[in-house]
């Protein structure tokens, strides 16, 4: 795994998200009300909804297509729905955000 810097925490609205294009697919990067930053794969396991476009509440996001709710910490679907998205390691240093991406995996593509 290697760290890739993607920008500053202020690039993401509070209780909001942005997406990052990577060779292994789009990743949603989320900023919660208390300035925690999380990254998960931007692809809902239900029908592929772009999770970065959902409403962020607490450390969760609600998918914009059919309202499944995912924990940003674990990637697990909450409530009655079952499924999970991959979480991506995030490092926050002096306001700069980096994502930990699997080099081997990326290089292989």
């Amino acid at each position, binding site marked *: 795994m*290697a760290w890739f810097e*993607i920008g500053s925490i202020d690039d993401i609205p509070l*209780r909001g998200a942005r997406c990052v294009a990577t*060779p292994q697919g789009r990743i949603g990067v989320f900023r919660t009300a208390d300035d925690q930053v999380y990254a998960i794969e931007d692809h809902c396991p239900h*029908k592929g909804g772009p999770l970065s476009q959902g*409403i962020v*509440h607490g450390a969760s996001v609600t998918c914009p297509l059919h309202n499944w709710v995912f924990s940003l910490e674990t990637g697990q679907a909450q409530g009655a729905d079952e499924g999970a998205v991959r979480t991506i390691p995030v490092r926050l240093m002096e306001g700069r955000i980096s994502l930990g991406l699997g080099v081997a995996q990326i290089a292989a593509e």
Partner: protein
Amino acid sequence: MAQKLVVIGAGMASGRMLENLFEQAPDAFEVTLFGAEPRGNYNRIMLSPVLAGEKTYEQIVTHDADWYSANGVDCRFGETVTKIDREKKVVTTVKGETSYDKLVVATGSAPFMIPVAGRDLPGVRAFRDLDDVEAMVIAAAKPEAKAVVIGGGLLGLEAAAALRLRGMEVVVLHLMGHLMERQLDPTAGYLLQKELEGRGIKIHCKAQTKAILGNEHVEAVLLEDGTVYPADLVVMAVGIRPETRIATDAGLHVERGIIVDDSMISSDPDIIAIGECVEHANVCYGLVAPLYDMAKVATKTLLGEQAAFLPEETPTKLKVTGVDLYSLGDFAEGEDREEIVLRDAMAGIYKRIILKDNRIIGTVLFGETADGAWFNDLKKKATDISEMRDTLIFGQAFQGGTSADPLAAVAALADDAEICGCNGVCKGKITGAITAKGLTSLDDVRAHTKASASCGTCTPLVEKLMVLTLGDSYNPAATQPICSCTTLGHDEVRRLIKAKGLKTIPAVMQELEWKTSCGCAKCRPALNYYLVADWPDEYADDYQSRFINERVHANIQKDGTYSVVPRMWGGVTSAKELRAIADVVDKFEIPTVKVTGGQRIDMLGIRKEDLPAVWADLGKAGFVSGHAYAKGLRTVKTCVGTDWCRFGTQDSTGLGIRIEKFMWGSWTPAKVKMAVSGCPRNCAEATCKDVGVICVDSGYEIHFAGAAGLDIKGTEVLGLVKTEDEALEVIVALVQMYREQARYLERIYKWAKRIGPDEIKRQVLEDVVRRREYFDRFVFSQKFAQVDPWSERVSGKDKHEFQPMATVPFQQAAE
């Protein structure tokens, strides 16, 4: 690749099967669902409370448009399948052919109409679907209307009690010697008759119907013995026949019902049949519990798993409020049978247990049915009751010295005791789900376990379980909270926002003691709307609390691209506008251009990154956002009116454009669609809109509260006004009242139903001062709302929404 599954019949059995299927394998099939009724699946057994006025249709809908679209079901409601071609594997409707890989027939039953003269007269109805209920409700509205119900079984009696509650004079004609003879013994039948007579219903047993009389419309029912009962409505509830016509025509093996094996497969291996249309091991079923089991089995069969349908006996309960009746199993007398009977004439209680070899084989309970579940449990497990024989009839609370506390009885039930008969849910599953998933409301429990989600008679038991599991924190009487972040309902929150002068989302959450730190996707958009509507000048709209469509001012599509719909005022366009659209389509290679139902043009499949550039080009041609994505004013459809039409009475196009220009940009609790027609021929279809105008020679007839989505409902007439100015003022006042009072996501027709159309009429039509106040408040809020969101974004607002934050390139990543 997903196989094609076609389902015929959008009823309770197929509805349950689809639920199971989407839970277990959401992508296994592409589903097309045909239903003869013009609506999706609802809880048919709750038609009785709807008829009685105790519930609304909306409350018994089991699958709404969102559910179908979320699961990608191609809904073909209002389309009757007329033919199955097994060779070609296609089904036929008036609209053409649809092919299948697997076919599920779930056509239910058809009510049996006794073959007497006059049975086709208007005013003779069955009791099977919502149309029947609506017709009966209309008939009951006539003063001193009289109803004759033919059939004293479950269905007939529920209809009779409901019509009586609606104020009709009701007679029940029953062929046999006592009511519900298939489920009740004569004593219980007698007690039931006395109870119903006490409510003013006349019961006539051993009544043989000879003819239904009337010329244009039903007038009376004539019996063989010469008795005549006058009638404005005749309800035929004498039984049902499995609906097997298309199956028979297709050459499937059909006896009384469609013959299926244990895995629900018919005589054709690609055709499955479930529900009331089915015959399994010589039995046809007419209660939902076994049909739900069939649905489970059919799901497994479709997924290629092994499963077998095991019939179980289902108790019968009468859903008439205030009548407690429970019947289960076999209660005929016999040589080898013993019975235990308890009667309490004063209290109107009768209990009878039928035993064979010291085991319960049947029970009939009247007046007090709390122990039904326990008796059922003993019967199912074939428990030897000799030990408790003397006290058995007094119920569970008497056994083992436990107190007579009703909660204790529920507490004492074994974990595998069945609570919800319809859905086969046992106690342990319910209490387990409450604890494991932290459920706090009845709705949650229904969503997770299905307990009490069908006929609802076990609701008290489920609530007792909730009290037992959750303690005092469960209060069944509380209003439905907005979401699990709060205990308050929408109305309460709206009231407190005004009363306490709360002007930000954090202020609302703090003052109203929200249970979560920053809400959820249900409450945040609601709060944001309430604050926008209540404090138009002071509140700063929180875009992070809006759904994606409203945040980026375009409609997200299933593949994550967007669609863009510019405003075309009143549906009128020009060569210049069309040319500009054509240029944009070419430039951005927009894959689909489509004319919408609201008289404008939709461009679909636009990449999010391109949105600002698309808007910039459209803006140059004078286009602004059509708000096709908003909970706000969508379209005002018009016809050509006096401009062109030889029938036109007023300038309908002009009025439509004027309304749209006045009201665009305003946020509302749910979307608002309007239309203006130039004469009663109504080419703009104004009578199914949230607000509609029908122009007439003498002025403008204003309509409201229509619906033409999954629900179909004609509008109510608000009133006639003489001038265009007045029409505009009334419409604006109506919408402002709705903006101030409705619950978030509640369409005008639902809000109007709750408030009452008369109250709305009083406030926005009759009370002229009030009307003006609403109007002025709307005008004030428009000062802050009428800003074109597209041009704002073209000038750079919310740039972050449209560009990825970063791109990790291949080379860098590969290092």
